[in-house]
């Protein structure tokens, strides 16, 4: 009898060797291989599974030689033995690791289409009311209440409107959008359709960064599948959905830049107002939302707004998708309600530090977020506490740095990123990031002075206060928090090497 194995087709699983397993075992006639989405326990990838008496049996970090063991059913562990997974409260990612990403049948069988069916029965106002109750805030970084944006677009009259999924996922250390597109593409489509119905749009785009070729291909295949089944329609009228590939600009994740790019121009930030919900793509009302936001919308309509509102903290409702990486034992995707502390997450899910490593700093919220020293990890993961701390949750990326990290070099690296990726539109960021980078290079090279450090602070202040978009306004944060918490290291660098000259 043939054995059915499950192996993730997710980019990270493949980068960790999943394809080698599949290829090595493809000649074995007794193996039937199903490629699935990923459970997000990336430290276990490549992870091979087969059906067992109590659900799936897992063989983590599998190598081609493990086939015999797996066939024999030897050494597999049960999910209940993986606390990383059992401790989570998965909703959006509940089905991850189970199903074939492009099987519409699978998706519908797990009630994936239920949300859109429910929304189909509601009026646009009804949908928006539901969104209001849910308390969902945008997951792309700015955390704006989703219903408000939708309502503005709904109220704006125009002969055509657009829905755009922001699949630019530019923050280093984040990957949940990619996982959704590769693992459950129909979930994104469903969320976009619900939004389209709410605002009266008949066209949509998924703006996908070029760094995600697999995600783009999967989305395209999913769109084709829906089209074939006539599922890409709203109230009987076709809904046109298209995947658009970016070309490597970080700022194109910012919504106005994204829309300029989608129009085929230079992806530079535009002044707001007008907001895209009023005048976006081609000047028409446009909702730009993050992939995870749309994916969550699907879940809200499937389970009901009240369910969503019951999770999380007072002003951060629902679950947060945290993406752990860096020098920890267990990098991977963690979905839990808002409100856990950063320390809990790193310890309980991250499994503590990698062997021999000591925690030095934690970056939350990507390159626009802040660095937290070991002493400040008790902050609660929710919008409000982060806001009060002058930090952002961003897109939920958590990167853990260890004791070997050179904070001056890291600060310089951050500023280099800000300068490299500046769109160039506004002076504080265009010139400031270059000057900041030069100052940090000087300090890193041991030629810096105390005045340079003070100048960085002054510059950072002006960038924060005056930049047109968050790239320039938040770009200095990692640097400034590094100086704040690891000031000695900077001072030492000044002193240590200025002796040479």
């Amino acid at each position, binding site marked *: 009898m043939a054995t059915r194995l499950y192996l993730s087709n997710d980019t990270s699983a493949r980068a*960790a060797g999943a394809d080698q397993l599949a290829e090595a075992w493809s000649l074995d006639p007794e193996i039937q291989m199903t490629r699935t989405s990923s459970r997000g326990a990336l430290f276990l990838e490549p992870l091979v599974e087969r059906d067992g008496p109590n659900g799936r049996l897992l063989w983590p970090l599998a190598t081609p030689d493990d086939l015999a063991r797996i066939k024999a059913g030897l050494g597999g562990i049960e999910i209940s033995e993986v606390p990383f997974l059992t401790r989570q409260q998965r909703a959006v990612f509940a089905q991850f690791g189970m199903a074939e990403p492009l099987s519409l049948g699978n998706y519908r069988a797990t009630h994936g289409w239920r949300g859109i069916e429910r929304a189909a029965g509601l009026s646009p106002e009804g949908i928006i009311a539901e969104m209001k109750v849910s308390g969902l805030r945008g997951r792309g970084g700015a955390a704006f209440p989703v219903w408000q944006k939708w309502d503005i677009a709904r109220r704006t009259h125009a002969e055509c409107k657009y829905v755009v999924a922001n699949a630019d996922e530019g923050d*280093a250390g984040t990957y949940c959008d990619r996982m959704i597109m590769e693992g459950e593409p129909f979930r994104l489509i469903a969320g976009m359709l619900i939004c389209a119905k709410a605002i009266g749009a008949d066209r949509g785009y998924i703006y996908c960064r070029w760094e995600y070729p697999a995600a783009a291909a999967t989305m395209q295949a999913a769109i084709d599948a829906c089209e074939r089944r006539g599922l890409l329609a709203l109230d009987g009228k076709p809904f046109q959905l298209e995947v658009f590939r970016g070309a490597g600009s970080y700022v194109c994740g910012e919504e106005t830049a994204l829309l300029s790019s989608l129009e085929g121009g230079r*992806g530079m930030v535009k002044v707001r107002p007008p907001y895209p919900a009023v005048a976006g793509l081609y000047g028409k009302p446009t909702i730009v939302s993050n992939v995870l936001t749309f994916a969550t919308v699907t879940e809200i309509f499937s389970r009901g707004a009240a369910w969503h509102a019951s999770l999380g903290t007072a002003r951060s409702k629902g679950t947060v998708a945290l*993406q752990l990486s860096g020098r920890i034992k267990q990098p991977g995707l963690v979905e839990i309600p808002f409100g856990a502390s950063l320390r809990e997450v790193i310890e309980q899910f991250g499994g503590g530090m990698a062997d021999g490593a000591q925690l030095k700093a934690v970056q939350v919220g990507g390159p626009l977020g802040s660095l937290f020293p070991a002493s400040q990890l008790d902050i609660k993961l929710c919008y409000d506490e982060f806001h009060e701390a002058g930090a952002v949750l961003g897109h939920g990326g958590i*990167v853990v740095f260890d004791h070997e990290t050179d904070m001056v070099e*890291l600060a310089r690296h951050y500023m280099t990123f800000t300068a490299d990726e500046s769109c160039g539109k506004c002076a504080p960021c265009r010139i400031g990031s270059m000057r900041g980078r030069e100052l940090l290079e000087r300090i890193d090279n041991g030629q810096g002075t105390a005045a340079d450090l003070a100048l960085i602070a002054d510059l950072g202040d002006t960038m924060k206060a005056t930049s047109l978009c968050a790239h320039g306004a938040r770009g200095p944060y990692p640097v400034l928090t590094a100086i704040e918490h690891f000031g000695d290291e900077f001072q030492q660098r000044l002193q240590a090497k200025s002796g040479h000259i």
Partner: protein
Amino acid sequence: MSDARQRPSSQETARDSLPTGQRTDLTDQQQSVARVIHSWHMPSDKPNILKALLSLQEQVGYVPLESIPAIAEALGVTESDIAGVLTYYPDLHTHQRGRHLIRVCLGEACVANRAIRLLAELTDELRIGLGGTTIDGQITLERVYCLGNCGVGPTVMVDDMIYGRMTGAALRSLLKRCQSCSQGPAN
């Protein structure tokens, strides 16, 4: 119109879609340019420069400067419009790059996992800097800020393949394969 439909899905169909009487005295590259330009039948849409350039790059490997006037003409935009877009995006290129493209991730998660050291090893080994191409034209080295593979970083992308948990040793064996291989990546 979707990306996929806009772009001829294979060389075969692309050739089928050539206008009748397509001149045959053109170089391969000119043919590709002509073909791609011909495939932008989007009269009702606003001309989308980025999309046009990306699809041309997909076919030719880069956007040849000589093709700019034809693109401008086909799209009904000016050459400066195209220059603006072409010089904005890091992933649009106007010159042929190496046969193989190695991109090292310098996103924070990979940096936390010593990506900068990895990059230093590479630049030493290849004796080129970021953006450079080895003198034999075999390898171009670039950086990328995050490939969404942070959980199994450090990450390196070689042509279209993404590799995780990179070590110096693993990288050297990848390098060797690239250096010894005489064919370009698919396409």
